[in-house]
Every structure is written in C-alpha cells, then in structure tokens.
C-alpha cells in the first residue's frame, strides 16, 4: 500500500476505534467519540496540509 492518504485514513480509523472502545461504554457514546476523534485526526491533518501548501519544501 503506497498511498499516504490511505495510510492516514486507516491509521486514524484504528486509533479512533481503539480509544472510543476504551473510554466509552455505550455503543452510542463510542460511535460519537470515535467519529469525533477520526474527524479531528483526518480533518486536522488535511487542514495542516492545506495551510502548509504555499510553503516551499
């Protein structure tokens, strides 16, 4: 698997599912926290990438 984006999505999914299961008990709370964490990780990374785009490498 060479896609950086796919790695990020898979990684965010594993980590957010793990923490949602670890710190929440009900299915509804787990889904809510898992989705929040996933969006924070993926959205944060994409936002950071967008902000950094104008800077030279």
């Amino acid at each position, binding site marked *: *698997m060479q896609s950086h984006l796919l790695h990020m999505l*898979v*990684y965010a999914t594993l*980590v957010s*599912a*793990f923490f949602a299961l*670890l710190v929440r008990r009900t299915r509804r709370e787990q889904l809510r926290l898992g989705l929040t964490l996933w969006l924070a990780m993926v959205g944060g990374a994409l936002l950071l990438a967008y902000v950094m785009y104008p800077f030279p490498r």
Partner: protein
Amino acid sequence: MAAKQAPPTHSADRPEAGQTWRGWIAVGLGWLLPGLGHVYLGRLRQGLLFGAIIWSAFGLGLANDGRLALRDERQPLLTGLQIVANLGVGPADMIARRSVYGELAYRLPDEQARGADEQRAEIFRGRARSGVSIYGTAYLWTAGLMNLLLLFDVWDIGRGRNP
C-alpha cells in the same frame, strides 16, 4: 495546634487478594495475546474488538516494512523506548523478530560487525530505506502502545475498579 489526623481509609477501595490475582492473570494473558485479558474477565466483545484492532495494526506494520527497533548504543534512551513499544504486543514481537532478522535480535551491531551481525544491520537499514517504512513503524509502535494501555484497563477491571 490541631493534631494531624490519619487519612480516612475506605475498606471498599482495597481490593481483596483474589481480585489482585485476577488482575495479574488478566494482565499476563493480555500481554501474551492482545485482547485475551478482556476475554478472561468476561468481556468477550471488547476483547475481540481490541484484539482485531491491535492485530490489524501489527500486521499492517509488518506488511509495510515497519522497523522492529534495535538498541543503538549511540541513542540508548530513544531506541530503548522504541523496543518497549514493540514489546507491548507480547511474544508476537519476538516471533516477528525471528522471522525478519532470523534471530531474536534486540541490539544494533556496531559498524565493524561481520557475519550474522552485519546481515542483521543490513536488514534493519534495508527496511528503513523502504518508502513505506515510516508508516509500518508507526503501526508497530501504535499496536504495542495500545496494548500497554489495555493492560492498565484489564488491571483496573480485574481489581473491580472499572465495572
């Protein structure tokens, strides 16, 4: 001046000896096979899900040329912590090392190494050169660290602190 009072003791907070044993057994099983600690404590669904997550991360790490950390004398603290993270998944780390390095290796040979030591160093550097190695390494560390967190969780559950 008021005399110092002894802190209040709550007998309900003190786990019984049986609970302590239960906690230790759960921690041991959880380290041997990620997810098994929860299964032992009767949390089958949680154990299976945690196991699936950790094994997926570990498998992805190995499939993406993740570096199984070797202790480097030039960076002992950093590489030592990396080994701790790797060892979080339990004996699976040792099996992976035997498969990747051909032996149970935990130390990076020095520059003048020859023979099997030199070969181990080359395998390590070869995996590091791979374009996906940084992802593989992150998966491996994450798998180990997640399982270490799970050990704290099963310890608490086993001692009745996390109903």
